[in-house]
């Protein structure tokens, strides 16, 4: 009888452990929202992507429709090449869609925001998004602001 009870308890323990692992996988991690494999690939070129990472979200109208698959550097044009995977069900994006890099919140993570154009044709596997706008780098903005201030000052003195 005692061995039977022992075995039942071990069964409960193993089941609880499995359930905990399952909960971690489904409820805590991104497994439930993560479906790689389906989707088509679109690339875009940027002068500056600082802060964007692989697996960053790609959004349109604020809704996530894909993720950044890879980021590489083109030696010829000296630009960053961002490869994005867009989910298959969102296959009606106009061909002249433009891509910009935004920041979520003031200090949040970077993401790619797509804005639709007016073309009748839609983006296909392997297409390139031509219109791009780079990520705003805070240091550059402050730099520009300071030089402008200095210019204004020297103008005023004259």
């Amino acid at each position, binding site marked *: 009888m005692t061995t039977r009870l022992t075995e039942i308890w071990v069964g409960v323990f193993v089941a609880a452990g499995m359930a905990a692992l399952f909960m*971690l996988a489904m409820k*805590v991690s*991104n497994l439930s929202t993560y479906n790689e494999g389906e989707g088509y690939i679109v690339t875009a070129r940027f002068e500056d992507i600082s802060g964007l990472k692989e697996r960053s979200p790609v959004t349109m109208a604020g809704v996530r429709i894909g993720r950044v698959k890879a980021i590489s550097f083109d030696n010829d044009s000296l630009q960053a090449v961002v490869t994005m995977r867009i989910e298959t069900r969102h296959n009606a994006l106009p061909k002249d869609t433009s891509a910009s890099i935004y920041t979520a919140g003031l200090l949040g993570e970077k993401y790619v925001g797509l804005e639709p154009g007016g073309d009748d044709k839609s983006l296909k596997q392997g297409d390139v998004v031509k219109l791009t706008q780079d990520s705003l780098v805070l240091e550059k903005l402050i730099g520009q602001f300071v030089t402008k201030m200095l210019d204004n000052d020297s103008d005023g003195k004259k």
Partner: protein
Amino acid sequence: MLSWLQLLGQKAIDFFQRLGRGHLLFIAILSGIPELLLRFRLVVQQVYSVGVLSLVIILVSGLFVGMVLGLQGYNTLVDFGAEESLGTVVALSLVRELGPVVTALLFAGRAGSALTAEIGLMKATEQLSAMEMMAVDPIRRVLSPRFLAGFISMPLLAAIFSAVGVLGGFLVGVSLLGVDEGAYWSQMQDKVDLHDDIYNGVIKSLVFGVVVTWISVFEGYDCIPTSEGVSRATTRTVVHSALVVLGLDFILTALMFGEV
């Protein structure tokens, strides 16, 4: 001067001999595992005493660690208006670090010391020698099942610890402090990666399970068969396990999350 050198040499030789014995024992234990699959009942009994009996301490500590994380994380994050990230903070610290490490420390204190004391007493009361007299290999009959049980129990315990901790953080953060429930889960799911975080946490707990049970079993088997020797071996199990777990944790973290 010479006697000082002799002492140093003696300590060094002792250390390396223990290390060598430990590894030989490890190999002997591993070679006893295949035949255990035929007599799995032995392992089940050990999983009961190593795993099931540790369940209460793991559940309670997991809950409280999660609740403290929720409270402290909230107090820090609310200054930045980022209390929605509480779920991420709680889940990542539990799954990556606290789950495996705290579980391993508790496991060493609760189950490891018991293993050492049990095996040490078996040796002191000459039960192990009696087994050898009957042509039963004590390593295969006594040590291997306990080792396998520790190896099985540790990741399960760590997973339970993390899961309960996440619920504890939820309890404090959402029910008590008023973080939005949807944000708690969705931010968590957004940032916690199945492969990078959860698998690596499980790998950590597997490694800790091997190391802690190995140390416990070895200290028990290698102890001086007196009551004082057993008590010393039990202390050593807890101290060495804690040191090795914390040291290994740094190395594993550097390998998994370092990107240096």
